[in-house]
């Protein structure tokens, strides 16, 4: 098979899917891109066995349909070092030789058999719904950061997609904090749920363009498929039950603190510098409409304190949180003002933006640190 393609166009397309390829892989064919030529359409595929991404582009002067695996690293390195120009690929599927000729030279790579490349899971019996590209990106952005890395609790290493006929809710948790993000501009054919691993979501976030392009999402018991006109991704779902998140969201936290989000984050950042590095403990001491943030690291005699003004309705209280987790949460929230709803120093605090974005509802939970047991 043979075709001509612009170096930069090929590079751009490969980079959209190359993130899937894992750095230390078990099978050498997983370090490859699968090239498939049919007519004038070149399909490029990358996979790590869990996630598969595929992108299509048009090429010129195509001759002979065919398939081959090309090692990714050398190909990307080559393309990155080439100024924009047409490259002619001449591929011999029998001896697996790949020749790339450009204006400046000729390069050869040995490929691998296309049949050794993992097959895409068959979509089979799927249910579908659609949402815009930007809505999915936004949903991923709001939830992915709170996903757990604890492989011993696999359900929490992914984002839970809860489908309803009038909304979609994404939930992530690492057992210490939880994010629930709901969109009311998506409708699903039936009530359902599945857990999507972190990596394919990271891939989608970085590959999809943040616009109104419609995406089709379809799923079955084992896989999720996301496609638009040019790009498709399939991934294995996490085969574990997501914890009953609804049970841990406090129904009624009676005290409410309202504060400027930006001021709160910058104060937290400063105070947490003086916190113990393993616990990152920052104490919120709420007294009327005054909020004092304080942290200390006894080992090094570090201490930091800062006063902020806020609006507070409730009893005065002292509650400690991990500042790192809290900063991350508040940072991933929109709006100028933030509400923190509290009940006791040992129960979860609820964080929400004061202003609601249309069609969106975000709620974050953070469990406190219990001091001196």
């Amino acid at each position, binding site marked *: 098979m043979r075709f001509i393609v612009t170096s930069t166009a090929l590079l751009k397309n490969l980079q959209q899917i190359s993130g899937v390829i894992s750095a230390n892989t078990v099978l050498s064919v997983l370090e490859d891109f699968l090239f498939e030529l049919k007519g004038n359409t070149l399909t490029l595929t990358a996979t790590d066995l869990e996630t598969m991404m595929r992108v299509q582009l048009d090429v010129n002067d195509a001759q002979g349909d065919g398939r081959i695996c090309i090692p990714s690293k050398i190909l990307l390195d080559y393309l990155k070092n080439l100024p924009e120009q047409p490259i002619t690929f001449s591929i011999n599927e029998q001896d697996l030789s790949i020749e790339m000729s450009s204006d400046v030279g000729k390069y050869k790579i040995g490929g691998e058999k296309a049949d050794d490349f993992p097959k895409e899971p068959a979509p089979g019996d799927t249910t579908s719904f659609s949402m815009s590209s930007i809505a999915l990106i936004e949903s991923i952005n709001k939830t992915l950061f709170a996903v757990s890395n604890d*492989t011993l609790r696999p359900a929490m290493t992914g984002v839970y997609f809860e489908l309803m006929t009038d909304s979609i809710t994404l939930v992530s948790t690492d*057992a210490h904090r939880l994010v629930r993000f709901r969109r009311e501009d998506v409708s699903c054919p039936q009530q359902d749920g599945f857990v999507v691993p972190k990596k394919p979501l990271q891939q989608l976030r970085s590959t999809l363009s943040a616009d109104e392009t419609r995406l089709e999402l379809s799923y079955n018991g084992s896989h999720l498929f996301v496609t638009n006109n040019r790009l498709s991704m399939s991934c294995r779902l996490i085969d574990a039950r997501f914890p009953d998140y609804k049970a841990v969201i406090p129904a009624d936290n009676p005290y409410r603190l309202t504060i400027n989000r930006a001021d709160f984050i910058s104060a937290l950042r400063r105070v947490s510098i003086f916190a113990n590095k393993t*616990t990152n403990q920052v104490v919120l001491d709420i007294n009327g409409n005054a909020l004092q943030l304080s942290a200390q690291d006894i080992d090094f005699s570090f201490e930091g304190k800062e006063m902020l003004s806020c609006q507070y309705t409730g009893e005065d209280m002292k509650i400690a949180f*991990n500042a790192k987790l809290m900063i991350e949460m508040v940072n991933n929230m929109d709006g100028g003002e933030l509400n923190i709803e509290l009940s006791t120093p*040992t129960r979860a605090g609820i964080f929400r933006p004061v202003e609601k974005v249309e069609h969106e509802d975000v709620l974050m939970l953070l*469990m406190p*640190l219990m001091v001196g*047991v």
Partner: protein
Amino acid sequence: MESANRARKIIHIDMDAFYASVEQRDHPEYRGRPIVVGGSPEGRGGVVATASYEARKFGIRSAMASKRAQQLCPEVLFVRPRFDVYKDVSQKIRSIFRRYTDLIEPLSLDEAFLDVSEDKLGIGSAIEIAKQIKQAIRDELQLTASAGVSINKFVAKIASDMNKPDGLTFIGPSGIEDFMEKLPVDKFFGVGRVTAAKMNGMGLHTGADLKKLSESEMTQRFGKVGRFYYNIVRGIDNRSVQPHRETKSLGAEDTFQVDLTDIDSMFTELSKIAETVEERLRRHGLKGRTITLKVKYHDFRIINRSHSFTEPVDDYETIITTVQQLLLGTAPEDHKIRLLGISLSNFGESRPGRKINPEQLSLF
């Protein structure tokens, strides 16, 4: 450079059956009896940390499954280790070392290298220092140690093992090459039974056989360690005694005679390795936050998979469940596995009594 070439005086001190000897010292009823310090053979079955010399006569060795030890000698007594006591004794041994030199590199609670090229008391003779250290350990702690004295770490370590227990072996600069030539390959540090069998298969049985190979032949056949062996057989080992060497990782691994292909045998081997790792962690008083599984396939490709915890760990249960999960994530049954290894790293100081850390409350 000059000083690096000047002949050094290195002593390797290795306590004889350390844990078992401490137990026999503290419990007169154990004396003269075959005892094993380590896990009991019941339940999941522990491993032998140390066997007393009486027990060794039955073929019982360190790292052997306790069940096997019991088969070899049914009357053997299993004693639970008291690591706090061993640590304490180990500190006392080190304070004896410090009378002679500050260049002490502890390898574990019961083993250390000492560089006595310049000793604090101006004794001058490394053999004399080794004698005095052994005597002090006997007088003050009622324990025996074996010493190896030479000009580098490698030879000193082998020498200390030559006349155990209560031995003192000196291998001087003139005898070193001769000594290395006669040394069977399986006595070389880092050569396990599989590598030894591989070497024997190539007709390499002693240091002299290895010496016939060129440096490039050695690296070709044995990889990076080949160069190390190349130098070692010529008596060259310039590694210095490092008093402040931090343990960065600690673990154990095993190469299998026959490649593993089914998950059951992989799990069985992993549990043996995990036992050893747990024992070594306790021996060094370390807890690690990161557990790493190493897998070498039949084609010598190596992969590592690791998992980190927020709190340091050192217990068998955590180690084994973690590495089993990690192994399952590598599609293990699709490959022939030649070697499995487990290591812990990211050692936090486990500071007992200082755990005033606030507790992060959980949702689930």
